[in-house]
């Protein structure tokens, strides 16, 4: 810093730092994170909680504002979280009482080269605004989250089963109360060999 | 029994009339189109037969022209059918009356 050379300023009077410096995104004090700062400024109550773990920042927001917050982060001149890297959900069944699910968005800012995690709690039966109007890439990701968790995204253009068959009626497999082998009993496949193994010319070893 | 021009004319007449009956009887525009082609071909036989009879080549020449004109007719006709079927979604001739109005 050039200021250090000219003035012997005390530590408290920090040199006027760039409010958008990349270090701030990784600062120990999570409130210094520019996205947190801006969101608190802009939306106030919407930010429920901010968590920092292993250099990753997670912002919990209120679900009804998810789309506004996303759009704000995307269109913000300096934050510029243009990319939605991932959208998924978390079933917090055994970890807390309510809300049951967290919708998790992994954002990335190409400009600042930082990631940001956005979480919005949503209860079973509630819906969360779709972010497809913000990012088209959310289309398939939200469909998958719906498919796996049953979270309804309000305003999604085409919310239907994605990985599971269209007529899947056994619920949502990634929920924590969904058993690993499913609800239904499936007949075990006949794995016994019905034809005896014989040594043939083609198999050679009598496999 | 000698192979005379009558044989060819008879064949030509038979084909022509089968084609004509097809045009009159069928309602499917594609088959009507096929029958028209058949009639043209039948007439070409007549041309060639008369050419053989009179020992000239004029008949063959005109048969050739008939085939060429039939090709042009086919191109236009098929394009018409395509355009119409695109518009009307049907190849039933009776529905093409709107064209006359």
């Amino acid at each position, binding site marked *: 810093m050039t200021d250090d050379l000219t003035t012997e300023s005390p530590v408290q009077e920090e040199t006027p730092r760039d409010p958008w410096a990349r270090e701030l995104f990784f600062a120990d004090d999570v409130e210094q994170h520019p996205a947190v700062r801006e969101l608190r400024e802009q939306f106030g109550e919407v930010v429920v909680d901010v968590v920092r773990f292993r250099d990753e920042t997670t912002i919990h927001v209120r679900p009804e504002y998810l789309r506004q917050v996303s759009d704000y982060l995307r269109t913000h001149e300096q934050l510029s979280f243009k990319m939605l890297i991932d959208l998924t959900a978390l079933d917090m069944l055994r970890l807390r009482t309510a809300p049951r699910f967290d919708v998790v968005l992994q954002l990335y800012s190409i400009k600042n080269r930082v990631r940001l995690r956005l979480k919005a709690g949503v209860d079973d039966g509630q819906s969360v605004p779709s972010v497809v109007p913000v990012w088209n890439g959310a289309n398939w990701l939200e469909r998958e989250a719906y498919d796996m968790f049953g979270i309804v995204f309000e305003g999604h253009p085409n919310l239907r089963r994605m990985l599971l068959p269209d007529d899947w009626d056994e619920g949502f497999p990634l929920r924590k109360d969904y058993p690993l082998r499913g609800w239904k009993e499936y007949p075990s496949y006949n794995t016994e060999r019905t034809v005896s193994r014989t040594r043939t010319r083609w198999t050679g070893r009598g496999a | 029994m000698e192979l005379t021009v009558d044989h060819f004319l008879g064949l030509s007449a038979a084909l022509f009339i089968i084609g004509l009956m097809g045009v009159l009887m069928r309602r499917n525009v594609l088959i009507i189109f096929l029958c028209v082609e058949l009639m043209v071909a039948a007439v070409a036989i007549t041309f*060639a037969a008369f050419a053989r009879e009179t020992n000239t080549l004029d008949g063959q020449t005109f048969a050739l022209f008939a085939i060429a004109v039939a090709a042009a007719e086919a191109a236009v006709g098929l394009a018409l059918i395509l355009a119409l*079927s695109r518009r009307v979604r049907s190849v039933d001739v009776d529905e093409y009356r709107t064209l006359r109005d």
Partner: protein
Amino acid sequence: MPWEVIIFYLIAGVAILSAGGVVAARNPVHSAVLLMVCFIQIAAVFVMLGAEFLAVIQIIVYTGAILVLLLFVLMLVDPEDLPEFHTGRPVQRAIGALLGLILLLEVAAAVVTRTITGRQGSATLENIEAVGGNTEALGRQIYTEHLLAFEIVSMVLTIGILGAIVLAMPERLGVSGYRRRDTISLGHPRGTDLALPATAGAPIRATAGSKPEPAGIGRTLVMAGDPDEQPVVGGGRR
């Protein structure tokens, strides 16, 4: 009965049967196939009449082009849309049959009572052979005596092609025009994707240490060494 006549009757029989099949077949594709058979028979008849060139042209033009085009159209048209023969109005069918019969009688009468009054030409088989075959003789005929008719036919063909193109052109541009458009918006509220600005050839800011090298034909890659550098390409600086 000489071989010639037997062969003729064979050919004529197949021709008439297949022609009848053309009219009677329910499925237009069957009609087209039978017509193809009929046309090949007609080509054989041409050979019997000493018109080999005509025979080959008959096959190339009629079977090779017209009927193929027709099959093409048949495949494009939904078979569901094709009404069937037997649902047609019986009155029209009866009248058609009647008229056909009358005409057949008339033609038969004409054939039987005909007298050919035209003058006999010199194009006997021997003379044609002397010229160098049917093709050459026909060529000489077309390009000398019938030149005007030939030109007119070529005009007719040209006009026919143009007419066909105009008629068959889809109302909303050609297929290729459809392709070249920007991708459509998918109902996205933010509207259509913008077409690429013409920056593909614009100077690209090369980053330090990078070496823009010719990578493809008419294309270069930007070699970014620094993650913060965003080259001005595509949809602009991001």
